[in-house]
């Protein structure tokens, strides 16, 4: 673990008293390696290490095991802060001035959007709301059936319309929600590549027409270096208000969490922790920080 490696580094330092800047650089190299191995994107690792270096120099880190522990604490605290800080508490979905409150889900292929849509629907239903699921993926074979099946299992209605382009379908769904008294609309969209201009324009258009209070980037916890590009492009081309990190029940270190949070600058609101509809939890920065540091 990083803590073992830092203790090893500090044990080998030969000077007395306060750790020198050069010694600190040796320690920081271990931090860099640990974060890269945890899948934090390189440019985010560099920013992070610079921030830690500043804090460590300011803290007048000492020799020996005490020094190693000081650096670990600085790293951990900085990581928690960069992940959004605090204990998180119950994650809240943004709301519009008036219902229905739209929650739009976007992301790469296979990241867990459809499953997450059903999880959000269950959560809202349990909170006493009336959510409407919207099947706005007309491309993937049986995508609509998938959401309908999930909706039926949860007793949540699913809006769909064959042969309606997703931006039109989304607007129809809002009208339907207003008419039938749904106060939340959860919009499941097709998986897409950030380098697919047509598909990125599609979600940008849906966003433009609906102006949803919540646009969630649904991303896989096992995502590697590409996380920075995903966060950047979805944020620039669509505009996102939050992130859901799925498949956190895997043993992926989850460094993508730091990349996504730091590049998009929006909170990670939820994590997916199983394939089931109740597998959605609030994001806790301190837990993810410990996991990333291994």
């Amino acid at each position, binding site marked *: 673990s990083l803590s073992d490696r830092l203790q090893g580094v500090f044990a080998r330092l030969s000077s007395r008293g306060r750790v020198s800047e050069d010694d600190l650089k040796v320690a920081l190299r271990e931090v860099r390696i640990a974060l890269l*191995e945890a*899948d934090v994107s390189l440019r985010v690792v560099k920013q992070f290490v610079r921030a830690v270096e500043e804090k460590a120099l300011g803290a007048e880190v000492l020799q020996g095991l005490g020094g190693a522990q000081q650096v670990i604490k600085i790293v951990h605290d900085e990581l928690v802060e960069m992940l959004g800080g605090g204990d998180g508490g119950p994650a809240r979905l943004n709301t519009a001035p008036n219902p229905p409150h739209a929650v739009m889900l976007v992301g790469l292929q296979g990241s867990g959007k459809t499953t997450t849509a059903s999880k959000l629907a269950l959560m809202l239903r349990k909170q006493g709301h009336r959510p409407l699921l919207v099947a706005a993926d007309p491309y993937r074979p049986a995508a609509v059936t998938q959401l309908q099946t999930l909706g039926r299992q949860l007793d949540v209605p699913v809006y769909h319309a064959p042969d309606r382009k997703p931006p039109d379908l989304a607007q129809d769904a809002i009208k339907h929600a207003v008419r039938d008294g749904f106060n939340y609309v959860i919009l499941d969209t097709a998986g897409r590549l950030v380098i697919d201009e047509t598909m990125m324009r599609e979600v940008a258009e849906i966003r433009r027409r609906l102006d949803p209070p919540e646009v969630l980037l649904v991303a896989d916890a096992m995502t*590697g*270096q590409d996380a920075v590009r995903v966060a950047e492009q979805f944020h620039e081309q669509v505009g996102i208000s939050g992130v859901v990190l799925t*498949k956190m029940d*895997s043993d992926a270190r989850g460094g993508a969490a730091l990349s996504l949070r730091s590049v998009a600058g929006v909170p990670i609101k939820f994590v997916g922790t199983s394939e089931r509809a109740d597998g959605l939890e609030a994001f806790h920065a301190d837990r993810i920080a410990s996991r990333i540091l291994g």
Partner: protein
Amino acid sequence: LVAERPIDDDLWDDLEELLLQADVGVQLTDDVLERLRGEHRAGEIQSSRDLFDALQDALATALEQVAPPHELIRAGTLSAVLVVGVNGVGKTTSIAKLGAFFRQQGHSVILAAADTFRAAAIDQLKIWGERARLPVIAHQPGADPSSVVFDALSAARARAADVVLIDTAGRLHTRFNLMEELKKIRRVIDKQGVGHVSTVLVVDATTGQNAVAQAREFARATGLDGLIVSKLDGSAKGGVVFAVTREVGVPILFVGTGEKIEDISDFDPDDFVQALIG
């Protein structure tokens, strides 16, 4: 990077960045660069052009050498391909693509819808079957996946089909009971006296270092004969496959390059490396 430039610290740094950002990983990046620095010191690399060629060579060789070639189909017998992997990586879509590919080559292919768990998984494969004009053997959702496999193999014999592609539910390699279920499926196939059986792991090109753990655990459960790297049409480079092939010693057989049925190609190490260091 390709333009002629001096071989200095900046160039080594840029190369390190390139490899790390491609998900090659810390250890392998260090190994590759250390070897190239050695070749440079020994005078075997003179220009940045040489350096790039040497890098291309080192990476392509790493993929070719670690794993012996493997054919999914053996002539004159029934070949079964068990497709496995974690959730959402592209197993079902890759099976549709492979099925169409083998059918084009003149094989008689049957698809087995052995993901009886996920919502609309069977529907999804059935639609692909219709599009590719391939028969799909399926039971109802919640059925025992092993019984679907058993049926598909019997059907293959009855219809003299020579290839059975088996779709399985996505599963995290950390889930003991799901990995046990997979072992049971493999035992059912083995008991059927199928002439040629392969297990193929699908790895998503956007995956980071966790792909190594995935490969290790799936290999431990059922053995692996090959890999498919999906979603290489995206911005992710899939560099983790170097660590994966080093870990489990199996060849990459195909790459997925899109969501259409024709978006699959034979794996070519030179093309893959060129796109990575591109």
